[in-house]
């Protein structure tokens, strides 16, 4: 007789699976997380999850929380969407982020700006310095060309369709998948406007830490970069770890680094004056 021939047997079979460890899984409770940054107390951890190659996650992040994305094995390729959790029609605006800061290359000390003149998050730590605000997400068509298909139900999911699932968990849809930021894979612009990608290899353990300046929904898709030239679907796990921290004080050096950025913080502080 099978192990699962009646409800009680099936229940026992199901319950016997508890405690299984997988490479990609959340730490629940998050306070059980290990290998934390030195200054971070386990009690302050609010989210810890390893996101699979080709996987995704979406999560609400309160103002003040630090979100660290770590390229565990050197080939993670997260694409990132950000929304104001309170009113998600406000979202990351890549064009404003670059234009307002007069620079196309994001790194430590830079801001991620919304389409409402506010700073959604600050890049408080960045050991990589190799990112891409130009090339966006892969999609079904681009993955089909390279890998044969890009379906969510297949072996080679594309970032756009991963985003569509991530935003759906918050009641958002295809129209809400805004231009994204790609982390860890470097794209520079050459003199004639050409995009120059450096896909790696990069050392394991590089990370970026975002400080949420507003209550956010963060959506991460860990799929190969759209310009990844390798024929194989190559990507490795990504760790997301978030912990509590103070709301940015008036004397914060990133807040005060530029007149444009300071006005973005002032607009956030004005928004929360209630």
């Amino acid at each position, binding site marked *: 007789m099978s192990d699962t021939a009646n409800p009680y047997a099936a229940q026992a079979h199901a319950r016997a699976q508890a405690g299984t460890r997988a490479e990609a899984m959340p730490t629940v409770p998050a306070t059980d997380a290990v290998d934390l940054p030195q200054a971070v107390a386990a009690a302050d951890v609010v989210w810890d999850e390893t996101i699979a190659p080709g996987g995704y996650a979406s999560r609400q992040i309160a103002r003040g929380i630090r979100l660290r994305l770590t390229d565990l094995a050197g080939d993670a390729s997260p694409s990132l969407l950000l929304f104001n959790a309170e009113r998600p029609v406000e979202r990351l605006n890549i*064009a404003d982020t670059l*234009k307002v800061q007069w620079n196309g290359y994001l790194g430590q000390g830079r801001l991620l700006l919304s389409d*409402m003149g506010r700073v959604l998050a600050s890049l408080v730590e960045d050991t990589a310095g190799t990112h891409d605000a130009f090339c966006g997400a892969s999609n079904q068509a*681009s993955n089909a060309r390279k890998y044969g298909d890009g379906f969510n139900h297949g072996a080679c999911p594309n970032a756009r369709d991963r985003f569509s699932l991530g935003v759906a968990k918050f009641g958002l849809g295809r129209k809400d998948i805004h231009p994204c930021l790609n982390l860890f894979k470097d794209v520079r612009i050459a*003199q004639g406007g050409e995009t120059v990608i450096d896909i790696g290899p990069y050392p394991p353990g590089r990370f970026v830490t975002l400080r949420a300046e507003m209550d956010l929904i963060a959506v991460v898709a860990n799929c190969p970069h759209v310009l990844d030239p390798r024929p194989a679907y190559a990507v490795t796990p990504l760790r997301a770890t978030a912990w509590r921290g103070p709301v940015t004080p008036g004397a914060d050096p990133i807040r005060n680094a530029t007149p444009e950025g300071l006005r973005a913080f002032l607009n956030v502080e004005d928004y929360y004056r209630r």
Partner: protein
Amino acid sequence: MTVSAPSLGTVVHDEVVAARAPWLHTVKAGQTLRIVDLEGNQAVDFLAYSAADDAERYSAQDTIAAQGNVFLRQGSVLLSNEGAPMMTVTATAVAYHDTIGGACSCESNTLRYGHHTKAQHACVENFLTANARHGRGKRDMVSNVNWFMNVPVEADGALGIVDGISAPGLYVDLRAEMDVVVVVSNCPQINNPCNGFNPTPVRMIVSE
């Protein structure tokens, strides 16, 4: 119009868009939209939606990735967020156009220039106005094209809107590869050189 512009087929629509105004028009597959920079260095902020499914729309990032270049030139194909060709730049008298600078907004103007500019008219206001009558809203704002606008990127990543490289009568021709709803803001910005500090009219000619 310059003498070098390709001759047009049968003109089915010809309209001058006033300085600072929005414009919305459906361009059928196979038709060509010519945008004429009548007085020179007038940024034309431009979005396109698939007429069949407006969740599919112009994607600056898909376009940049596919052509491996941030500038739009003759031969550039405007791609949708699903990777489908929407329009092709079949001809242009300007060396390159921008698609990384985005649209000005009241809100971003407060960051770029100060809070005294919040009340000034802006491209996002035009996009929202034009789209509102068709059931679209703020979720439908994505990175746009800026025809006739010059945004160079330096070696260190420095970028910005600088003096234009267009001139009176210069044009861009866009052949629709699918039925598209084109939404334009004839940019009203007066705080940077994108309109030569003087917004002017542009001409829209659809031919087939």
